[in-house]
C-alpha cells in the first residue's frame, strides 16, 4: 500500500468534490451579496442545469456544448424569474418574503422538471475523451475528476479577476456594499442585480451539468447539495466570493476524510466545522457580521 499515493488520491477526490460545491456556493454567495436574498431555489436550479445538460447531449451529442448551453439557458430562466417576480419585492423591508418566493419557485420548478423529463433518472454520459483513468503513484484516479479540478481552478481565477480587475466587477462589489450610493452615481442597479442573479443561476447550472455524470440526473438531486452550499457560504462568510472558495475546499476535505475515517459521524462533520467557525467568527471566515 502506497501511503503517499493514497493521501494524494484522497486530496484529489476532495478537490474534485470542492469544484462542484464551489460552482454552486459562489452563485449563492454572490446573489446574497448583491441582493441580500437567500436563494432557496438554488438546489433546483442546479438540478435544472443537469437536465438541460442531458437534453443538450441527447440532441447534439456534445458534452462540451452542454457545458455552455445549460448555464446560458438556466441563467436566462433565472434572470426572467428575477425580473418578473423578485423585483416586486425590492421595496419591502422584510427579508422573509424572498425566502418564501424562492421557496415557491423551487417547488414549481421541480414539478415542471418532473413533468417535462419524467420521473426516470437519466444517464448523462461523459464523453469518451474524458473517460480515462490516470494512475498516480499506483492509485487509479478518474480523468473526469481531474477535469473537474482544472475547470474549478479556471473558473475561480477567472471570476476572481473579473471581480477585482474589471469595471463590471467593481460595480458588483460596490452594489453589494452600498447600493443606494451606486444608484445615485448613475448606474442602473436593477440591471446589475438581474445580471448577478442570472450569473449565480448559471454557475449552479454548470455545477449540475458537471455533477450529472457522477450521480446521474434524477429528481431531488439538488436538495442535499443546496444545504451543503449554504453551510459553505456561512463558513466562508455570506457575500464573500473568496470565502465561498475557501469554504468549498474546507467542507469537501472534511466530508471526504470524515467519510473515510469516521463513517458513523460522517454526517456530522460538516456541521461541527460550521459550528466551530461560527463560534469563533460569527460572521464567517471572511464575512462581516450581518
Amino acid at each position, binding site marked *: 500500500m502506497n501511503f503517499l499515493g*493514497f493521501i494524494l488520491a484522497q486530496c484529489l477526490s476532495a478537490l474534485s468534490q470542492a469544484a462542484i460545491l464551489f460552482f454552486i456556493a459562489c452563485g449563492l454567495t454572490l446573489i446574497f451579496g448583491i441582493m441580500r436574498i437567500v436563494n432557496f431555489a438554488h438546489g433546483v436550479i442546479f438540478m435544472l442545469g443537469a437536465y438541460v445538460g442531458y437534453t443538450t447531449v441527447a440532441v447534439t451529442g456534445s458534452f462540451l456544448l452542454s457545458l455552455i448551453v445549460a448555464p446560458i439557458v438556466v441563467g436566462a430562466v433565472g434572470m426572467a424569474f428575477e425580473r418578473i417576480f423578485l423585483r416586486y419585492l425590492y421595496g419591502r423591508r422584510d427579508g422573509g418574503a424572498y425566502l418564501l418566493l424562492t421557496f415557491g419557485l423551487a417547488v414549481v420548478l421541480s414539478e415542471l422538471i418532473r413533468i417535462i423529463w419524467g420521473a426516470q*433518472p437519466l444517464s448523462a454520459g461523459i464523453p469518451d475523451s474524458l473517460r480515462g483513468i490516470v494512475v498516480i503513484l499506483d492509485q487509479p484516479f478518474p480523468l473526469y475528476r481531474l477535469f473537474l479540478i482544472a475547470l474549478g481552478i479556471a473558473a475561480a481565477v477567472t471570476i476572481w479577476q473579473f471581480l477585482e480587475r474589471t469595471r463590471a466587477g467593481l460595480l458588483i462589489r460596490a452594489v453589494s456594499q452600498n447600493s443606494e450610493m451606486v444608484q445615485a452615481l448613475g448606474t442602473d442597479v436593477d440591471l446589475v442585480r438581474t445580471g448577478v442573479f442570472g450569473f449565480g443561476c448559471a454557475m449552479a447550472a454548470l455545477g449540475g451539468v458537471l*455533477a450529472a455524470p457522477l450521480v446521474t440526473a434524477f429528481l431531488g438531486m439538488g436538495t442535499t447539495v443546496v444545504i451543503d452550499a449554504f453551510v459553505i457560504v456561512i463558513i466562508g462568510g455570506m457575500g464573500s466570493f473568496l470565502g465561498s472558495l475557501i469554504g468549498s475546499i474546507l467542507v469537501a476535505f472534511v466530508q471526504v476524510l470524515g*467519510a*473515510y475515517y469516521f463513517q458513523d459521524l460522517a454526517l456530522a462533520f460538516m456541521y461541527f466545522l460550521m459550528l466551530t467557525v461560527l463560534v469563533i467568527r460569527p460572521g464567517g471566515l471572511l464575512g462581516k457580521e450581518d
Partner: protein
Amino acid sequence: MMTRQTVTRRRILKGAVAASALAAAPAIMRQSTAAIPIKIGIPTVITGGYALLGSQVIRTCKLVKKMTDAKGGVLGQPVEFFYQDTQGDPATCVRKCQELVERDNCRILSGVIVSSEAAAMLPKLEEWNAIFISHGNGDGRLTAELFVPRFFRANTSAPMGARALALYLKDAPEKKFIAIASDAAWGRSSNAAFEEQIKKVGKDLIDKIYAPVANKDYSPYITKILQSGAQGCYVALQGDEARAFYSQATQYGLAQRVQFFTEIVAQADIKVLGKDAIGLMGSSRYPLTYDIPQNKAFREAFMSEYKNEIPDWSDGEMYQALMILFAAIEKAGSPEPMKIVTAMEDLEVTSVKGPILMRKCDHQGENQGFVVKVAKNDKYAEPIAEIVKIYPREVNTPDCRSASYSK
C-alpha cells in the same frame, strides 16, 4: 394596523375550521357507497427519492387489475386499487394507511416501498383490522423480532438475497470480500446477513462500509475498497445511491480490479448504466429469464401492455405478491382479513418465480434463490440479468422468525 392584523388572524383560524369541515365532507359522501369490490390499499412512493419504485408498483397493479377484470374478478368480485403517496416517510405512510383503512375501507395493504415504513405499520395492523402483504420490503426483522400475524412477506428478503450470493461465492475464485451498504434498515440487515453467510462458506469479510442514505460522493468509499485488497465487493445500495456508486466506480475502473456482487439487480439501474453494467453479478429478486409458463405469460402480458418496458424486480415481486393474495382469497372464499390470514398460512402458489410456500411459522414466503449476471441479450434492447444459478427454497430461506441460517 393592529386591528388589521387581528382580523387576519381571526380569519385564518376560522378558515382552518372551515377547511377541516371541508375535509370531512367528501368522506361522509364516500362512505355511503356500498363496498362490493375487493379493495386493496397501495401506500407507495409517488414523489421523492424512490418514486421510480413506486411507479413500478402502480403500473403492475394497473396491469393486474386489467387482467383480473378480464377474468371476471376474484371470487366474482372486481378488484380495486387505491393509491396514496407516502413520500417514503414512515409518518406519512402511517397516516395514509389510516385514510385508506378508515375512509376507503381497504382491509388489504401492499406496495410499501421502504422497510422503515413497513416497520411503522406492523404494530397498527390490528387496530386497523387490516392485513399487509409485502412485495419488496427486505428488512429481516419484519418476519423475526417485529413479527405480527397480520403481516406476510411474499418477496425475497435482504438476508435471502445475501444467502444466495454467499452460497454461490463458496465456489468462486474470490477469497476476500468487502461490503458496502446504505445506512438504512434494509442495508444494515443486508450487510449483517452477508457477513454471517460469507463467513459460513469459509470466506473472509475484510470490512463493512455504510454510506449515508442519499449520499452523492462515493470517492472516499471507492478509495477504501481499492485500499482494502478485497477481490469481491458486496453492494447493498438501491436507486439513486446505486447509480451514483456504479457511475463513479466505473470512472475509477473499480470493476476491473474488484468483482461486484449486488444484493438487488435492478433493470432501471442497468438501463441507465448501459454497457457499464455488463459483468455485474448479483442476487435477483425477480429473474426475468426464468423459463416457466407463469413467468412467460407475465412477461408477455407486461411487455405488450407497456411497450419497450422490461419488467423490473419490483414489477415481478408485486405481481407475485398479488397472485398469492388472490389465491388465498379464493381459498378462504372471502376477503375478510383474518380469513385471508388463515388461508395464506402454509399456502403454496406457483407464480413468476416458481413455487412459493407461505410459511405458517413466520409468514415468510419461501422463495428460490437466483444468482444472475448482467449480459447483452439479443432479445432485448438493453442488457439484462441472466440466471447463473438457482438455489432451492428450503436452502434459501432463513430459520423461522430469524434472519440466520442454522444449516
